[in-house]
Each structure stands twice: as C-alpha cells, then as structure tokens.
C-alpha cells in the first residue's frame, strides 16, 4: 500500500469484521528514537493462539470470498522491510491489538498519507462505532473521540449526517495541521 493510513483503514476493516464496537487507533511518530508506530486495538472477537501464529501468512484467512488474506501479511512485509515488524496481542472473545513498528527514517517507509480521509471513511460508513484516534508527533498530540462528539452533538443526530461529516473533516484537518506545527510544519 502506498500510504500507512491505508494500512490503518485496512486494519480497522479487520476489527469491524470481528464485530468490534470500539476501535482505537494510535500513531506515534518519534523522530528522536527513529520510530514510527501504528496500533489498532479493538474489542472484537479476537483470535485463538493457534490461529494467530499463522495469521501473518497470506494463506491464513477466515474469508470465504477468496483463499488468501492480504491485509496483515502486506503490513508485516512493509514493516519488516523498514527494520520493524508486526506484533499481535489477542484474546478470544475479548479483542485484538495489532501493532506495527517502522524505522521512521527508512527509505522504504511509506508516508502516513491522508489519515483524515481514512478517518472520514471509517466514521461515515460506521457512525455507530466508538472510535478513538490518538496521534503523537514528538511532544504534540491530537485526540479525536467519537463519544465526545456524539455527546456534544446529541444522540438523536447521527454522525454520518452530511453537515456533521463536513464539520468533522474541518475539525480533523485543523487538528492534524496543528500537530505538524501549523504553517511552517512538515508533513510525514
């Protein structure tokens, strides 16, 4: 995938496929330790120990529509190519945490890319889930929590209302801009 934010979208699809109602995305860009970390945690169905040992292989999938599962093996390959790897913590019936680490400065590390579009896609198509997004760049942090937004908006108005989505998009764009230091800031 050309952007790490596409891998994130893909990981969240796995969480939703496992019937998660709460999904947390964590991103940590730590230049001083030369580390780019992304993590998706969910409260979905989880996996068994035996299954998870095989899951980074493309031939492991519970899909019925095709014989290979691409998502996790692609992410693992991308992370390994960049001096990192994928770590999976999961418990059947409790949930799953997928963590991918990359060497921040590595030549082959894909850029984070349009994380705003990833978040908008998740929220627009799944307004009912509880999504928490936490993104750290050095000392700065941006957090988005859909429960907070729902509280402010009132529960009778769905998050996928077009006007609400429009607001969300601007809110996130500003939050991410500030995270990267506003005007003079850099982009990953």
């Amino acid at each position, binding site marked *: *995938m050309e952007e790490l934010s*596409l891998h994130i*979208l*893909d990981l969240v*699809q796995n969480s939703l*496929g496992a019937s998660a109602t709460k999904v947390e995305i964590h991103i940590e860009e730590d230049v001083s330790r030369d580390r780019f970390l992304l993590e998706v945690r969910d409260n979905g169905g989880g996996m068994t120990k035996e299954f998870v040992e095989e899951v980074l292989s493309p031939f492991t999938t519970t*899909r019925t*529509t*095709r014989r290979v*599962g*691409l*998502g996790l093996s*692609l992410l693992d390959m991308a992370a390994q190519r960049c001096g990192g790897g994928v770590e999976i913590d999961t418990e059947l019936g409790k949930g799953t945490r997928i963590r991918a680490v990359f060497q921040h400065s590595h030549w082959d590390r894909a850029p984070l890319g*349009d994380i705003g*579009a*990833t978040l*908008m*896609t998740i929220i*627009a*198509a*799944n307004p009912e889930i509880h999504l928490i997004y936490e993104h750290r760049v050095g000392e700065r942090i941006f957090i988005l929590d859909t429960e*907070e*937004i729902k509280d*402010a*908006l*009132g529960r*009778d*108005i769905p998050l*996928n*209302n*077009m*006007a*609400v*989505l*429009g*607001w969300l998009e*601007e*809110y996130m764009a*500003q*939050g991410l801009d500030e995270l990267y230091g506003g005007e003079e800031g850099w982009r990953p």
Partner: protein
Amino acid sequence: MATLKNLDDLRKLREEVKGELQERFGGEIKIIVGMGTCGIAAGAREVMTEILKELRTRNINALVTQTGCIGMCEREPLIDIERPGERRVTYGRVTPKDVKRLIAEHVLHGRVVEDLVVARFDEEEE
C-alpha cells in the same frame, strides 16, 4: 467558510441539522463501497472521499456504507447504488473521476451508468 474548530460548534450545528432531519422523508438512497484489502489497494478510500464530497456539495443526504471483499477483487473499487424501490446496481473499477457522473445520473435520476456496470440485482433475488 467559517472556521469551525471546537466541540461547541456542534451545539450550533445541532440546531441546523435537527430542522433538516424533520424535512427528510421516504426511503433513503444507499451507496455501498467495497472496503476489503483488495478494494482499499485499488482506491476505494479515494472513491469514498469523492462520494462524500459530491454528496455534500449537492446537499444530498444519502446513506453511505461499506462492505468487505465480495470476491470480485480484480474489479475493485466496487460500489453499489440502490434507490428506494429500485434494483441495486454494482459498478466496478470506479475511479474518483466517475463519481460525479454516478451521482448526477444514477443517484439523482435513477439512470444507470451502463459503461461501469458489473452486476444488477433484481429485488426478488435478494
């Protein structure tokens, strides 16, 4: 456009949106985007982004949802459009550039965009 950036804005937005909700009636138009790994790798997120943008510009309150891989990976990005009471149509290899046309023709007027069609569902089949 006004710069909105804190949660207080939502309380104002709430009043505007509430009025709108009451005006809406009848069934909803559904747009479903394929979001399996195959879809994402082929550009489903960009198509989704364009759909949301176009709906907003034209002020159409359609329901946009997603589905996983349906086994037609080589024809991703796939999107389904379904108007209330009409049959659902699946479009394939959709690019962001096709979105304006799909919305102007199919979503708004029920005219199927033939050159992008991959499958049609009759109501009885579903």
